[in-house]
């Protein structure tokens, strides 16, 4: 959860100063802030549970690529704005479903962080679903780009629902996720590609070549000057 939020937060922050319009620049930065804030809560909790004295910073800046447990979906390069938005619509829906379940089913700190993050994910979804509609049901060119993004991204969503030791029940999230995603994509006139056997493995720590570049940029300062503070 923390790594997903952290890496997507980093990717969204890359739009800072490069957004297609000022409002979207600010939106991406705001959503990135929310995600990095969520990541801090999760990583702090992980550090406390681990009991080894690692705090949020040590976990964010001190781990190597194979130790990150984010899904591959969030580490892919931003591409064009349609790709960024379609990735978010898929991820925001996933967050809404997963966080909603944790907020109700989990206990203590996990439920508290999930309940807080869920409220933000609902807002993020509203923004990404809105733009998916604009791109998909917009001009010929915007639709072409949104569809290309969806074609490229769909295969990476399989991993989200692949059961593993952490969440043996991950598959049960796919139904509620599709209930959010399918109508939004359909309204945007986008066609969901056929499912394939492709399965990315980011949450097992086996990442694409792109994550290393994200980490190199994110971790540079703490690696070069360990413990540096503002």
């Amino acid at each position, binding site marked *: 959860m923390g790594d997903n939020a952290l890496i997507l937060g980093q990717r969204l922050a890359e739009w800072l100063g490069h957004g297609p319009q000022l409002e979207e620049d600010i939106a991406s930065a705001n959503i990135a802030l929310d995600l990095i804030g969520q990541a801090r809560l999760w990583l702090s909790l992980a550090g406390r549970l681990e009991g080894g004295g690692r705090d949020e910073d040590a976990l964010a800046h001190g781990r190597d690529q194979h130790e990150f447990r984010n899904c591959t979906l969030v580490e892919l390069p931003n591409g064009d704005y349609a790709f960024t938005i379609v990735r978010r619509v898929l991820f925001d829906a996933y967050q809404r479903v997963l966080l909603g379940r944790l907020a109700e089913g989990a206990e203590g700190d996990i439920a508290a962080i999930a309940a*807080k993050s869920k*409220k933000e994910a609902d807002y993020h979804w509203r923004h990404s679903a809105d733009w998916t509609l604009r791109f998909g049901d917009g001009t010929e060119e915007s639709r072409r780009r949104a569809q290309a993004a969806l074609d490229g991204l769909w295969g990476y969503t399989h991993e989200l629902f692949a059961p593993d030791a952490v969440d043996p029940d991950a598959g049960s999230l796919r139904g509620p996720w599709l209930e959010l995603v399918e109508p939004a994509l359909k309204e945007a006139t986008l066609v969901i590609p056929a499912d394939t056997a492709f399965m990315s493995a980011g949450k097992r720590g086996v990442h694409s070549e792109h994550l290393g570049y994200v980490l190199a940029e994110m971790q540079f300062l703490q690696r070069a000057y360990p413990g540096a503070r503002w």
Partner: protein
Amino acid sequence: MVDAWQILSGITDPEIPVVSITELGIVREVTLLVDGVEVAITPTYSGCPAIHMIEEEIVDRLQQAGYAEVRVKTVLAPAWSTDWIAPAARDKLKDFGIAPPGRVNLFPRSVACPRCGAARTERLSEFGSTACKAHYRCLECLEPFDFFKPL
């Protein structure tokens, strides 16, 4: 010694300087210790950058007031909601030019212009000058304004 709540009521949100952190519902609990005070606060948004400034200010102000030990702890549950904003603070927001949040609803129907009161307004952007606000424009007086999003 001045009451801790009273001191906290004098601390305003650095991004919305007309309302205090107690009116916003950020301060959840104040506990007196033998030689000081513990203040429980809750962040508005997970990524709100103002929360650190608020923490520092709480420590500074209470120490100045004579509380030797000041501890600030963060509580997450229940998650902060705009429903906790005091009624008086809503009027202050409006006078400051920020449309106050209505009751929590993800899709607010209409947002009245804080300047002229007109109901005919449009959303320009989901995200405004800070994480907690959206950007709107009044279609009557044409002024742009911030809307404090219900959360």
